[in-house]
């Protein structure tokens, strides 16, 4: 793998890091399988691209993207808790709806940011190097995001988030409205997914309505890879594992894409299959390891 491919994988790993933290929040903490992210990630990209094109500061556009993502997630939460729709279906409904909404937001299927300012400009101007700017900035931001989540999960409200996933009857008997917790947490998770989308569109220079396809599978694969490699004993450890899992996952993909055997090489269209295989491998690895240990 070349240096540029490596830095590119880091950039993607950290940019998707927010999404993976969000997926960890819904799937693991809240026990809420949320597919909304397939729609909220491109939503974040769309909002950010439109905002920047309209002359809004790129950093402010991140905030706008997160707000939009939060609303999308909250809608899923409301469909589930207030209207009693099964969580999986509720999230699919929002995801489908978001496809149309994203097209409306951009007014077309894709938008380029060529020549527009992005969050990377200040760094690139400082002379850090075009290829280093994104991995550095996104790494920094995703660590800040991780610390913010860690703080949140340790607040009184954060405890109710964890309890809502683990034992809803218990936390209801402590006077907590679990519906509210679910709406807020799924909202937060999707604001993270949208932030990933916004960062990606700024570093890639374009937003595309189809860029969200498979987001949830990649996010889940990253979470599982992280858990398998780095453990999840404490909540801090688990968050770190999720973020590192995202990086490892993107590195693995970059590695796979650089793979050549005679005439055969792996193309981006093979990635879905590879991701599925990766998840299967990560899920069976612990069992295999136990077997080896016993011997």
């Amino acid at each position, binding site marked *: 793998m070349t240096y540029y491919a490596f830095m590119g994988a880091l950039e993607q790993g950290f940019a998707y890091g927010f999404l993976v933290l969000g997926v960890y929040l819904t799937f693991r903490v809240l026990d809420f399988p949320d597919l909304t992210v397939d729609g909220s990630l491109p939503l974040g990209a769309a909002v950010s691209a439109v905002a920047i094109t309209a002359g809004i500061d790129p950093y402010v556009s991140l905030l706008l993207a997160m707000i939009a993502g939060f609303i999308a997630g909250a809608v899923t939460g409301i469909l589930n808790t207030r209207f009693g729709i099964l969580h999986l279906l509720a999230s699919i409904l929002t995801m489908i709806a978001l496809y149309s909404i994203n097209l409306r937001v951009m007014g077309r299927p894709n938008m380029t940011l060529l020549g527009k300012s992005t969050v990377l400009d200040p760094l690139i101007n400082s002379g850090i190097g075009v290829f280093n700017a994104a991995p550095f900035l996104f790494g920094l931001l995703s660590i800040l995001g991780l610390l913010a989540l860690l703080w949140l999960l340790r*607040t*009184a*409200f954060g405890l109710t988030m964890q309890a809502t996933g683990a*034992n809803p*009857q218990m936390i*209801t*008997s*402590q*006077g907590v409205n679990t519906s509210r917790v679910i709406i807020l947490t799924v909202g937060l998770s999707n604001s993270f997914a949208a932030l990933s989308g916004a960062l990606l569109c700024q570093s890639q220079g374009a937003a595309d309505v189809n860029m969200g396809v498979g987001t949830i599978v990649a996010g889940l694969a990253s979470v599982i890879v992280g858990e398998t490699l780095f453990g999840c004993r404490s909540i801090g450890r688990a968050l770190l594992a999720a973020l590192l899992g995202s990086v490892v996952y993107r590195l693995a993909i970059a590695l796979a894409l650089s793979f050549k055997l005679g005439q055969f090489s792996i193309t981006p269209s093979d990635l879905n299959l590879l991701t599925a295989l990766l998840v299967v491998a990560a899920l069976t690895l612990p069992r295999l390891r136990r077997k080896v240990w016993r011997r």
Partner: protein
Amino acid sequence: MIEIADLVKTFHHGSVNEVLALAGIDLKVKKGDFITVIGSNGAGKSTLLNCLAGSYGIDSGHIRIGEQDLSHWPEHRRAALISRVFQDPLLGTCAPLSIEQNLAMANRRGRIHGLGKGVRRADRELFRRQLKQLGLGLEDRLRDPVGLLSGGQRQALTLLMATLIRPQVLLLDEHTAALDPKTAQQVLALTVQLVAENHLTALMVTHNMRQALQLGNRLIMLHGGRIILDVGQAEKAEMRIEDLLQKFYSVRGEEFVSDRMMLV
């Protein structure tokens, strides 16, 4: 101070499986009453407690605590006034969270769970002191996940959590039934101690008739969703298990033998 008036609850309303679980319950509970609740399987005991706590909505009737009519309050809102311990020791605590985190949540029952620190240093002192009185050594294990504790330890912790903030009424639904006899005795003793110390108002469902006669100051018997016996302290002191059996016998005929009622 707790008033239940003509409480009716049916399940599967309008279907062939319709069950009339509560057929008009009238009950006035005075402050400080410790009421034991008995009755055969399916008599409606758990349904009564669930309707009080708000887990089930009611068809008709009223539930008042003090001046407040909470007949249609959602469960989480009632938690400010009502605390409970379930039969299943896993239900009252949150396994992946630590002992101190569980206690911290209970210490905010019915209040705002905001963005302040989940467990504060001052809390820990309180928790340690409270845990010490359980005599289980849990005061040294504040950061252990609750999932590591035994069923009895978890039930004792649940009891402590239910009384950390004084409830207007404590609901206990066969909370010792899933424990081995020795642990059940310990948890029961703790229950009596906590109720007495905090002068709590409590409703305790039990299948053990000796317990039902020994504990508390009042006993009610449910059958077919109705209260068929309601005796106060003096009368209860005179009663023997045979008298209760007699009562069962008169409403249930021969069936009672197959019941899981414990005779001793």
